[in-house]
């Protein structure tokens, strides 16, 4: 294995980890407020399509990402209303979102482009190095500069999240809502409000994670392009022990698996490429199996919060 292979692999890992970071943070914010959300796959799908369409229409991938976030928020408001106000089961409703949102995305795509459409492509977001006009073969420079602004945003969000939950008053209150909503309520924390805010954050981040796929990663939209990342993000949150830093490491690991499978496919070695494609999924299963029983998630996660509970 050459240095070239390894450096390319590492660069690709960082790129592949980015959508996972967005999605995992989305899940983290949701679960920290006591909402287990298995519908991220769906949110990412709609974010991905809307991001694609808007960047196609406006020519601006940035606007695409923004629109993707908005779309994620809008769809997630359905989840919010059903699980927070109607106390629907979160798992079941997450599943409903997983069915609804991709169907909506596929429908909008068909309507917009017509039935027998040709492949439509958009221009991808520029790397910082391109914007700055710096080209270099130095690995470190590439790692630092050959990235889209979304990558920097992802890392900034991780740092922000770690500080928010550990150092701020608001973050402490937020965590209390996920741990013990009734206790939070007796202290005057607006539990319902925090949960809705969590859904806005979650929708926005998941939408951005989806939009990343069509504005920074691949220049076209296909149904199913999220490819299970919404679920891998769930595993990453468990693996990362519900903390910003832990989630980052978990995403880098899964990103590495993804990058590895792409690199290995190129090498092929006479093995059917599908076996390489399985790597991220099998890695997820193996990681979950190894973590075992230890439960460290927010205590109130998954349970509905009824105000006048008798």
């Amino acid at each position, binding site marked *: 294995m050459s240095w070239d292979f390894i450096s390319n692999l590492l660069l690709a890992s960082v790129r592949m980890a980015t959508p996972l970071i967005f999605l995992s943070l989305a899940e983290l914010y949701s679960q920290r407020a006591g909402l287990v959300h298995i519908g991220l796959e769906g949110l990412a799908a709609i974010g991905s399509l809307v991001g694609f369409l808007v960047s196609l229409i406006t020519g601006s991938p940035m606007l695409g990402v923004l629109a993707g976030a908005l779309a994620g928020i809008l769809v997630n408001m359905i989840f919010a209303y059903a699980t927070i106000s109607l106390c629907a089961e979160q798992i079941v409703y997450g599943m409903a979102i997983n069915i609804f949102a991709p169907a909506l995305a596929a429908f909008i795509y068909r309507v917009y482009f017509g039935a027998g459409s040709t492949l439509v492509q958009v221009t991808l977001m520029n790397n910082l190095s391109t914007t700055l006009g710096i080209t270099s073969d130095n690995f470190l420079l590439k790692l630092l500069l050959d990235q889209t602004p979304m990558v920097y945003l992802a890392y900034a969000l991780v740092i922000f999240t770690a500080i928010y939950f550990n150092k701020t*008053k608001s973050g*402490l209150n937020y965590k*209390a809502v996920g741990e*013990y909503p009734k206790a939070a309520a007796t202290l*005057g924390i607006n539990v319902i409000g925090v949960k809705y805010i969590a859904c806005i954050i979650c929708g926005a981040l998941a939408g951005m994670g989806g939009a990343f796929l069509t504005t920074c990663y691949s220049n076209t939209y296909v149904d199913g392009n999220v490819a299970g990342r919404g679920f891998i993000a769930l595993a990453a949150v468990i693996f990362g022990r519900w903390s910003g830093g832990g989630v980052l490491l978990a995403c880098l690991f899964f990103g590495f698996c993804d990058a590895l499978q792409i690199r290995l496919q190129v090498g092929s070695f006479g093995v059917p490429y599908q076996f390489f494609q399985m790597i991220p999924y099998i890695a997820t299963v193996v990681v979950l199996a190894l973590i075992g029983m230890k439960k460290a998630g927010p205590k109130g996660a998954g349970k509905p919060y009824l105000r*006048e509970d008798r």
Partner: protein
Amino acid sequence: MDAFLRMEHVSKRFGDFYANRDINFSVRRGEVHTLLGENGAGKSTLMNVLIGLYQPTEGTIYLDGKKVRIDSPAQAVKLGIGMVHQHFMLVEAMTVFENIILGDRNTRGIFIDREARTKEIQALSARYGLEVELDKPITEISVGAQQRVEILKALYRGAELLILDEPSAALTDLEVEGLFDIMRKLTGEGKSIIFISHKMREVLRISDRITILRAGRTVCTVDRTETNGEELANLMIGRELAPSHYEKITEPGEPVVSLEKVDYHKESKHNGLCGVSLSVGRREIVGIAGVDGNGQSQLAQVVTGVLTPDAGEVDLKGSRVAQFTPNGFILESVSHIPEDRNKMGLIGDMSVKENIVLKSTDTPQFSSARGFHLKKRAIRDYAEQMREKYDIRCTSVEQEARNLSGGNQQKVILARELEGQPDLLVAVHPTRGLDIGATRFVHDTMIDAREKGCGVLLISADFDEILEVSDRIVVMFEGQVMGVFSGKEPPIQEISLAMAGK
């Protein structure tokens, strides 16, 4: 003296049920005002109205002479009302410090100013003698310390009126003394306290005035100096307390179950067992007395096969238990009334009928072809029979168990657990949350089972209940057996000391 808090004609209705009806109640500055009443008398509901968790259906609340609307807990905090709930409102995953500053609105800034906050908290804790270790996680401190955290939490938010909901329920005697010292300090500084309890001795010691609630209504308010325990008890129950003691048995039959030096998570004081040896004989009720959380739950789960002990031996009807599974114990005719009806005893979404036959659908009585065809008719008829026999009040045996009242849910469990003539009955807090009628029914049923030759292990945090039915009393403290006493003319003083670990 004018009242600091006045509640006038307050009612709270849930559906068709009035939990509070036309309540009048006032608290002065610097007094300890006790709310006395049985379970279900409406104390907790009234307090939840006061702290803004519930909205009153009718009535008005005055604070410092001004009419107030408390429409959220945040509003209650703002008005200076703080409550220490019976089940602590502490976030276990956080430290003492974090729990105290949680939801803080008085300080500026986005970040937590650790140093400044620590100083404030330490000043408060010094002033009222509330010792806590700020950096410890909640899970690592004792129940008494958790309570101090709760009080500090309220004071930190500037509480002028403090509600203590059954604060002594989980404390040892020594800890109760400490609590009373703190309460006196607080009232000395002009704070008002609403004290909720049904322990007569404590109420008489600490209160200035006492308001009695019964069935959701106020009965009256009396001065401590003008009353006595008997009068209060009568007011609380609404009739003379008949000294109806069951006959105690002093010579039980051969042991049904015996434990020899059983350990389970020995190092845990609150959720473990340490060298427990005891036995329950046929025709005998053994009562386990002790403050909640001293290993009783674990004891119950070991003798029903839910937990496997780490060390020691358990003999069931003379033979050693090799494998601990609930099913194995059930096959040996061990019945279990678990501590949490809804979580462990009943399948809430299933009907009364299905819950009654839950354990026995494999028997030929209820299914043919080795369980491959349920005899629905037979199940229904049997359930109807049980409904009659155990006086289960439900619209039909098809009703979902979760929609029954607590007492009727317990009767469903009794019907299931006692009908098969068990050799051993393990009953954990069997009357918790039940009204007097249902409690009496449960006690009668246990005595009845005893008469039929069943050994009964009764675990209860209600000392009166233990005294009422036990033939032998075993006291547990921090996972250990502190002493065994006769149930006939029990030495109450000694037992109380043993419960406090002395």
